[in-house]
């Protein structure tokens, strides 16, 4: 019996040594360890072994069985590894074929510039307020210190709507609406479409503005310079040169245009296309809120002061992306939109 076991062991190990595939190994497992397998048959023959011999013989059978099982496991693992490496060697795809992807939609460049500006001011503690596009004369003009028949109204050629309404010519009426309904301290911005009766390469009858204002006790022109310089640098870069120069808006006094050093030529001017050689680019209009505006909303101008500013979004986007014609924004050509 012992000899028989040893010969089964030797035969099994030899056969396994030659086994290449998973199937061949499986066949050998059945042949030796299966229900009708050779080792199994020997185990069944243990009944015929004498009780004295039985423990030693039993231990031998188990040892050989474990040895064969381990050899089967190892051969199987080797066979599988060999198959995997064979598969890997035979598989090849063209990885240079382009990916199958949905087209990436783009948000409009005006939306992108607006979000950038809005986020800069929200970061400074300004909250966004909204107002209607179809406005009344009072909120669009009169409360903002534009008297009727004043030539300042020529600066804002108006689109009139039936029912004595106008398409708002600027976002400033939102200033009035916020101040009518809230008390200082205020820090607010308004953003949106505005309209003028004007149409050429640099003027669109519809365009967009962002407007902001801050009202509190003791707000000064120096604060206007501070906050706007800070905000403009947040948008155009920390090292932008900034200058303010006097201007005129009916609803602010003193009024100022804010210029930044040209980012095209670095302020050197010359033949620069962006700043037309001046070295400066006008980016916003601003000023201290006129006492007449405060009176219109019932604030005491001796108690409160504040500043306001307005930015033309198309203008900023045209400068930033070097867009040549304002009408491109509204043609919505996909070849244009996909660039932003």
């Amino acid at each position, binding site marked *: 019996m012992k000899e028989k076991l040893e010969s089964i062991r030797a035969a099994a190990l030899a056969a396994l040594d030659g086994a290449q595939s998973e199937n061949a190994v499986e066949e050998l497992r059945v042949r030796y360890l299966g229900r009708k397998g050779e080792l199994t048959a020997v185990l069944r023959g243990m009944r015929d072994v004498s009780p004295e011999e039985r423990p030693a013989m039993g231990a031998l059978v188990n040892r050989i069985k474990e040895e064969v099982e381990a050899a089967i496991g190892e051969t199987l693992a080797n066979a599988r590894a060999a198959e995997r490496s064979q598969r890997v060697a035979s598989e090849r795809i063209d990885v240079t074929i382009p990916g199958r992807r949905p087209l990436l939609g783009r948000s409009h460049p005006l939306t992108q510039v607006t979000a950038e500006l809005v986020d800069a001011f929200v970061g400074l503690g300004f909250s966004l307020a909204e107002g209607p596009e179809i406005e009344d004369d009072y909120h669009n003009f009169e409360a903002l210190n534009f008297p009727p028949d004043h030539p300042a109204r020529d600066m804002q050629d108006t689109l009139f709507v039936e029912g004595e309404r106008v398409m708002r010519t600027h976002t400033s009426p939102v200033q009035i609406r916020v101040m009518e309904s809230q008390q200082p301290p205020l820090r607010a911005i308004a953003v949106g479409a505005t309209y003028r009766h004007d149409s050429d390469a640099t003027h669109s009858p519809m365009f967009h503005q962002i407007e902001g204002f801050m009202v509190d006790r003791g707000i000064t022109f120096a604060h206007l310079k501070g906050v706007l310089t800070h905000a403009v640098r947040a948008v155009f870069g920390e090292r932008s040169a900034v200058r303010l120069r006097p201007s005129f808006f009916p609803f602010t006094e003193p009024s100022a245009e804010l210029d930044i050093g040209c980012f095209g030529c670095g302020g050197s001017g010359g033949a620069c296309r962006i700043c037309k050689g001046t070295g400066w680019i006008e980016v916003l209009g601003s000023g201290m809120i006129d006492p007449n505006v405060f009176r219109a909303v019932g604030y005491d101008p001796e108690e409160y002061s504040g500043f306001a500013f307005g930015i033309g979004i198309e203008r900023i986007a045209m400068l930033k992306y070097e867009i040549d014609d304002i009408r491109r924004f*509204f043609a919505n050509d996909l070849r244009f939109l996909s660039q932003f």
Partner: protein
Amino acid sequence: MKLPLRWLNEFVRTDLDTAELCHRLTMAGLEVDAVEERGAGLNGVVVGKVTATRAHPDADRLTVCEVDAGEGTPATVVCGAANVRAGIRVAFARDGAVLPDDRRIGRAEVRGVESAGMLCSEAELGIAEQSDGIMVLPGRTPLGADVAELLGLRDTIIEVSITPNRGDCLSILGLAREVALVTGGRLREPKVRLKESGGACGDAVSIRIEDERCRRYAARIVRGVKIGPSPLWLRLRLQAAGMRSVNNVVDVTNFVMLERGQPLHAFDLAKLARPEVVVRAAAKTKAIQTLDGVVRALDPDDLLITTGDEPIAIAGVMGGADSEVSAETVDLLLESAWFAPATVRRTARRLDLHSEAAYRFERSIDIGGVASALDRAAAMIAELAGGSVAPGMVDVYPGEREADPIELRPSRATELLGCSVSGAQARKVMKALGARVDKGAGGALSVTVPTYRTDLEREIDLIEELARVIGYDEIPTELPSRPLMAGSLPERIRMERSIRQSLQAAGMSEAVGLAFASPDTNRILPGVNVAGRAVRLLNPITQEEPELRRSILSTLLAMWRHNRNQGATAIAGYSVGKAYWHEGVAGEGWRLGGVLAGEMPSIGLGARRAPELGDLKGILETLFEQRRVLADVAWRPGTEWKSLHPGKSATIELGGAVLGVIGALHPDAEVELDVDGAHWLFEIDLDRLAAHSTPAVRFHGLPRYPAVQRDLAVVVASEFESDQISRFVREWNRDLVEEVELFDEYVGSPIAPGKKSLAYSIAYRAADRTLTDEEVNGLQEHLVLALEKHFDVEHRQ
């Protein structure tokens, strides 16, 4: 306002170079728009004398001239002008000369005779628009002298943008005051030397003001003038400032207007019906023929200059044709007056007559300068057109008084500007502006501003002047130290931002369109939750689009057409914007629209395919899922839009109210809108979406027992809406049915014609135990029975 530096130099001398002067003006609020170097290109034209002429051998109209330019040997020049003759001095463009239009003059053979240059006309020198013959220079002009230099044809012209508050800067004098202010230079006003003779003005004409909108009216008479062309220097002045020469009298009135900002008018005295001028409202006077020959209908409120019953001018806007100065005019009545800005503006706008005079009156002129401008003009006319100035002027100035002083508190200036302003500093600045400064109460200054600064009425106006003169650069730059405030965005904006991201991830690009629409577009695309009718514009940009859009889809249709015309095959766009309506009053609301047209937008291998409703609906469902409102959304077949295909469109409802529409255009609407091909579009009411509240997010425990999946196939009529079964199954057993999903729709054999097979996958799950197979089989059997009872369906085994 064009500022020629040669003219400016007569009022204030400055050594600054042009760039520095422009910078200082800009920083003082007078923004320089452009600088033009006029005559810079003109080169090599010198004074020559025609010493001899002879006829050209081969051309009747040409003359061969010998021209001496002071160099000894005369040049031979062929000239085509009729007025060339021996002895005259001319502008001789030598070989190599360059004319203002960049034309280079060289030696050339003219019909067999070599010409060594050209004799120039005024037009060729850029002085006149057209001229008859060559320019003849005065007899003693030095030979060989540079003509451009001699005549002053080279000038630097600074174009200054004048804000509407600074009417005082619409003149050379006004700008010179500012230049003196920013350079520290001294202002010199030209002295007027007036010689008077003949009968007194006051005896010949009377003036009456019957309307308080004219606060001052002054007139002078100049007799015996000879109307003719203006001298070269005057024409050059007008040309440099951007005006055309008419005749000597009109040119003088324009010259004085440019110089001093006071518009003047000259009437032909002989053509006035009566020696009496009345300023009054038009009232019953219906019309006047203005000097441009047009008959203008008048408004009763228009301010007129009249004589007898006849209107002779629309105050401040334009003179009448009947009293116009003509070649035969001998005696003049010169008008210098002040009219209320608002009335001039109203009339000029209504008549669309935007004259230089009206432009200045609208911005308020210097009421204190009315008489001196009149003297200046009368003296110049007497000098240039002959004639004599009648002694005295009639000057009606009923409310003449000094302006009220304005209180200026240096402490208030300090408070508002954020930099310390002393009383002495404020006094100095005010004096530099030409104001009189007296002591006021409690440290304040009492400031009386000059009459030309009509923009300075309040303390804040003076504070602005302080800031402007001190310089904005000198004011510190400070951040306010205030309690922190949190900046915030409204919920609608935050929603809009997440919607944009979700649509862009689906391949849709954002369009922004103008809000204008045609009545046809508004009829075809009636909008969502848009009441009443369309809003009309009173002065639309184009006659084709006189309304505001009712539907944001008008923008997307335009985008679709534009890109199709550009050859795009895949169009996927969305737009967020306002829709407008009119129902008693004008209203507006936020809308979102989208379109998928052509092919499905994708890059990479694989067959291109047309979009299906499911593509666009899926994009919207994702969007609703993000907002956590998908469960409240229903898709009802059909819409109220006639322009949508009735069998391929749905009304989107949210919480039972209309949220929007989705579908394809009706083929008739495709024709009307000029679009075709596979497409789907939608519009939703963003205000309603934003207003729909969603429950706060709270965590629900994860299921502890497994779900059991079963499929169920039924055959139904082909028009049957698959959603009915999904909704029914969900409601049928809310405890155990966890999910119902349609996974297949099949038409064709073996399914009978007119029928379709729908296959649903149903997930059953109990919260407290593992469902057994027997239990689920029983549920399925019950479900089939229930379906067969409720619908006309046949269970497919």
